[in-house]
């Protein structure tokens, strides 16, 4: 088994090592090469701008020669690079892979499909390209001797990046949050969200929201948006307040350990997807929760 890791990080290098055999890393600068030194048998350095998917895909397609599997992170840019490279190489691409094994020239991988209502066990012939879902491969890549090699290529891109705008990013890192208080249409006006922020504060958690709050009403920036097209989260407690529980929202919270929900509508679908549901007016119960929990934490 020979695996090439592109945009290498600890998780990907560990995932590659679980397949056995040789692990190589493709990086796009000397600095990245130093960061993976000792974690891959071979380090290939391609001096191209990885933000340009066509140039990066050219490097991937060239570096992939002789490898059974190309592994990438499941970021938007990496998926684009993966699609381009896979078509160039004439191979399959599996994205958001949860688990995988390679056997007899076949890659078998699991991924969520159909709005996260089902798991597909997909089999594709090797060689292949796969992007790995975050948080699924936790471990240390073994220490090895690294040989560094320059990948000779004259990258061409027809894309021009005219500007880059950083997204306003507060302290919100929902993917890493242990407790999330999430808000939905049950809140009647923007100012009322303050209650949820207070509850999150006493719980030591962060605030998430459903699609309408971020995309339609724009009461919160998109970095708070939890769901299939927003953030996929895995806290130990997900507390959904005034969220009805549309399938697209549920799809983003599947990996939560405990889901609790507050909604005044007993038929809200969120209750079918929660461990603990409270049928109550959020305007009545949230202030009580803030009060009780802050007392609890205070002493």
């Amino acid at each position, binding site marked *: 088994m020979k695996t090439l890791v592109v945009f290498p990080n600890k998780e990907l290098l560990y995932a590659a090592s679980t397949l056995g055999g040789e692990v190589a890393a493709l990086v796009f600068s000397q600095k990245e090469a130093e960061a993976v030194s000792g974690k891959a048998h071979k380090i290939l350095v391609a001096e191209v701008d990885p933000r340009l998917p*066509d140039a990066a895909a050219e490097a991937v397609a060239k570096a992939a020669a002789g490898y059974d599997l190309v592994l990438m992170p499941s970021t938007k840019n990496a998926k684009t690079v993966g699609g*381009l490279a896979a078509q160039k190489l004439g191979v399959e691409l599996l994205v958001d892979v949860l688990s995988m094994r390679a056997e007899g020239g076949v890659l078998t991988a699991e991924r969520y499909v159909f709005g996260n209502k089902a798991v597909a066990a997909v089999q594709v012939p090797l060689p292949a390209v796969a992007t790995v879902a975050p948080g699924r491969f936790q471990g240390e890549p073994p220490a090895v001797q690294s040989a560094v090699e320059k990948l000779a290529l004259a990258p061409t891109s027809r894309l021009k990046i005219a500007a880059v705008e950083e997204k306003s990013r507060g302290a919100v890192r929902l993917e890493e949050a242990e407790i999330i208080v999430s808000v939905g249409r049950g809140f009647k006006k923007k100012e009322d969200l303050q209650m949820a922020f207070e509850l999150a504060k006493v719980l030591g958690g962060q605030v998430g929201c459903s699609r309408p709050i971020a995309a339609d009403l724009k009461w919160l920036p998109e970095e708070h948006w939890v769901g299939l097209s927003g953030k996929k989260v895995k806290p130990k*407690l997900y507390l959904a307040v005034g969220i009805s529980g549309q399938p697209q929202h549920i799809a983003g919270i599947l990996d939560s350990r405990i889901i609790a929900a507050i909604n005044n509508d007993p038929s809200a679908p969120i209750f079918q997807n929660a461990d603990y549901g409270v049928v109550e007016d959020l305007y009545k119960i949230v202030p009580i929760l803030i009060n009780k929990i802050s007392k609890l934490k205070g002493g």
Partner: protein
Amino acid sequence: MIKTALDTGQLRVRDAVVVEETPLKISDIDRNAVEEAVKLKGQDKAYGVTVLKWGPLQKKIQEAENVLREALAMGLDEAYLVADEKLLNASHLATAKAIAAVVKKVGADLVLAGEATVDNYTGQIPARVAAELGWPVITYARELKVEGGRVVARRDLEDHVEVVEAPLPAVVSVTREINQPRIPTLLAIRAAMKKPINRLTLADLGIGVETKISAAYKPLVIQRKKVVIKDGTPEEKAEKLIQHLRQEGVI
């Protein structure tokens, strides 16, 4: 590019995943792609293309045509349905080849698609079609302008937005934020009945298809405890919830 996707809202997942009986619908984000095409087409024609991925073929062809009618009612001029036994559950490689062949056939210079489709959500076809055509690709566009033979897009990535330019011809995948898809009027729906839907096979496109992907689906069942607290005063309910959450060790 329109995906005649499985309507996952109607997917039955109690004991087994029944793909064959799940109806097709237009993949949600492809509505945004259709809307953008209609807005940009000007005096030119805008075409829709779909590759039928889900069988059984004969049954799904009718459903796929209905999906395309919807896109025609939104303002596309003509649609292509690639339906071939060999393309059912086919590799993404083959799907992209079939779409690229239709793009060449109609002579389009801009291909628009949703960032990903609602059933499989892999989002790889736009990049693959671009590679197949040898065109540049801009993915996850939340704003798009076409001027002087170039596309300029705001590409919405995880931590930042890039303003990216590319020469035409090009492939662009769009996000839901790019526009508000129109709801066709009754008149437009009637007019769409007269617009052509061209059905093609792989032989018509002169392409062969290699491996199939094998996929086994099983329902994703995460059993939640579903304890519902509905009796008592708000005070009592809050107390019960806190007790449960403390027992679970999460607060």
